[in-house]
């Protein structure tokens, strides 16, 4: 997989050098053989250095990389026996949210995931990964079903936000999200949410009110997509990079703020370089958290989940200013 992001230029050059030398095969001169070994050693080292110090905006670019694994890739790699459920039983079926029961090793779970599209056609089919109200209503229906059958809920978050079209307003985007937020807070089964790419605004949070919230190392989580935030704060989406930095969107920053419980490591150079590896890491993290949560009674789960979100927020006490 090529290094194609702007800040990966030195890596791309190294990779090109390696490819050129390798092409020579047997005709390599001794000093070229030495150069090849050097370059092959340098590449992972440089990658590690660059990825250790990614800026907020660079992380946004990795989180949005077109080859980054999407929800269906993880489902394929982590689960067996997935059966997709469709429709909100009211107005339609949303393709930006994929849901259904599956087997995770020996445990039946309910998956609820946001799904982006890779090529033009699939992007259109998935509405660029921006869920419609019927997506949240499908998710809510499926969550209540999971509760009925005692299945733990695993959700994967990957959207820059909820769909902002006029039809979405007509069908009640605000109500759909408000409703699922409140329903999720009272589900009597364990819920684990993971941000696997972009976690943007209420659109992502819509399936993210969970007992444990995990975040992949190079994913982002923010109150609004950086472009949207920039246009709200500075009336120009071109300032997105500043917004990304100010809002602290990187996984380790979000972890330090106490909003997520665990950062799941990604392979060297990002999840898109090794699907198997990142899926294995995620699966392990989900298994571990699920084992913990299964020790708790439903009442304990509910109270802890309530307190988890109840205690988020920073404020002080001071006298009202005099005008």
């Amino acid at each position: 997989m090529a290094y194609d992001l702007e800040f990966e230029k030195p890596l791309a050059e190294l990779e090109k050098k390696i490819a050129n030398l390798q092409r020579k095969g047997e005709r390599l001169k001794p000093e070229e053989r030495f150069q090849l070994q050097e370059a092959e050693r340098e590449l992972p080292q440089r990658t590690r250095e660059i990825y250790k110090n990614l800026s907020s905006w660079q992380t946004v670019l990795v989180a949005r990389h077109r080859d980054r694994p999407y929800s269906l890739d993880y489902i394929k790699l982590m689960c067996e026996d997935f059966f997709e459920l469709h429709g909100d039983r009211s107005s339609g079926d949303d393709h930006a949210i994929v849901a259904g029961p599956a087997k995770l090793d020996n445990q039946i779970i309910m998956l609820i995931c946001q799904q982006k599209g890779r090529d033009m056609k699939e992007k259109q089919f998935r509405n660029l990964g921006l869920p419609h109200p019927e997506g949240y209503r499908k998710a809510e229906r499926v969550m209540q079903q999971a509760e009925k059958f005692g299945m733990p809920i695993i959700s994967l978050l990957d959207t820059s936000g909820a769909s902002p079209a006029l039809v979405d307003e007509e069908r009640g985007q605000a109500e759909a999200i408000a409703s699922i937020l409140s329903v999720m807070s009272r589900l009597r089964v364990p819920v684990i949410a993971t941000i696997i790419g972009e976690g943007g605004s209420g659109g992502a949070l819509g399936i993210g009110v969970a007992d444990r919230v995990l975040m992949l190392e190079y994913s982002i989580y923010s109150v609004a997509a950086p472009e949207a935030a920039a246009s709200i704060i500075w009336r120009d989406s071109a300032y997105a990079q500043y917004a990304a930095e100010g809002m602290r969107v990187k996984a380790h920053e979000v972890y330090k703020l106490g909003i997520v419980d665990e950062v799941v490591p990604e392979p060297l150079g990002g999840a898109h370089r090794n699907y198997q590896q990142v899926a294995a890491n995620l699966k392990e993290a989900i298994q571990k958290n699920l084992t913990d949560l299964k020790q708790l009674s439903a009442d304990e789960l509910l109270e802890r989940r309530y307190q988890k979100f109840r205690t988020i927020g920073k404020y002080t006490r001071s006298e009202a200013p005099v005008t």
Partner: protein
Amino acid sequence: MVKEAVPLTEQTFSGKETKPVLPAVGNIAVKCTKCKEILYTRDWEKDLKVCSRCNHHFRLTARERISLLVDLDSFVEVDADLASIDPLHFATQPPSYPDQRTYAKKLEDEQRKTGLTDAVVSGQATIEAMPLVLAVMDFHFMGGSMGSVVGEKITRTVELGIDRRIPVLVVSTSGGARMQEGLFALMQMAKTSAALAKLREAHIPYFSLLTDPTTGGVSASFAMLGDVILAEPGALICFTGPRVIEQFMHIKIPENAVNSEFVLQHGMIDAVVHRRDLRSTLAQLLRLYSPA
């Protein structure tokens, strides 16, 4: 029994008094921001700041709103001292942007301007002698945006309703989540919605009144979760603002799209109520939904 609402000028505020922010055309008259009609300030205030020509409902401050809705002198404020901080040390600014104030500085300025610590005032009061707890948002404080303080005060209001077993009213007016508080702001959506889920389990009624504008993270959490949802006429009510919808769809949408009447027509709210009828409507609802 329908009571005539008392005009604002004849009421006093029980809390700290703040100056209403008037559209500036001098003291004697104001200009309607919608139809450009010149209105005498005295008539306009008697009309509860509604344009007598085009029925445009001007935005009210939280304290004006409270005195409009509840019994005279019945309001007792709580948590008046909860104030915002800058939890992310949000200091990055595009160098070319004219306003270089940091979030911390902006907060200070807004507090001085409005006399509020943040964009919501909450407490307990009565309407026609029936008790309720209420939280009223104020658009004049950073566009009514929801950060930690707004979320916390709304949540406390709901919890107070659960504790005392009395109905809850939230009056919304907000541009959405406060970007400068990042995920802390986003999580207030989850926090308030979770508190309201508990309120529902306690079988205590929750009334939500939407005023201009109610958008973004506020509309997608507590504002849309009312057992009964009311809206003032002509208020902008949406998840995504019209400007963003237009950018996304590359079309022009009609001026009156995504307002109170639009959401009523699409089944998202229960009624559009004129400002002068709000108090009597709330009283009626309190009677009908009073916990047995």
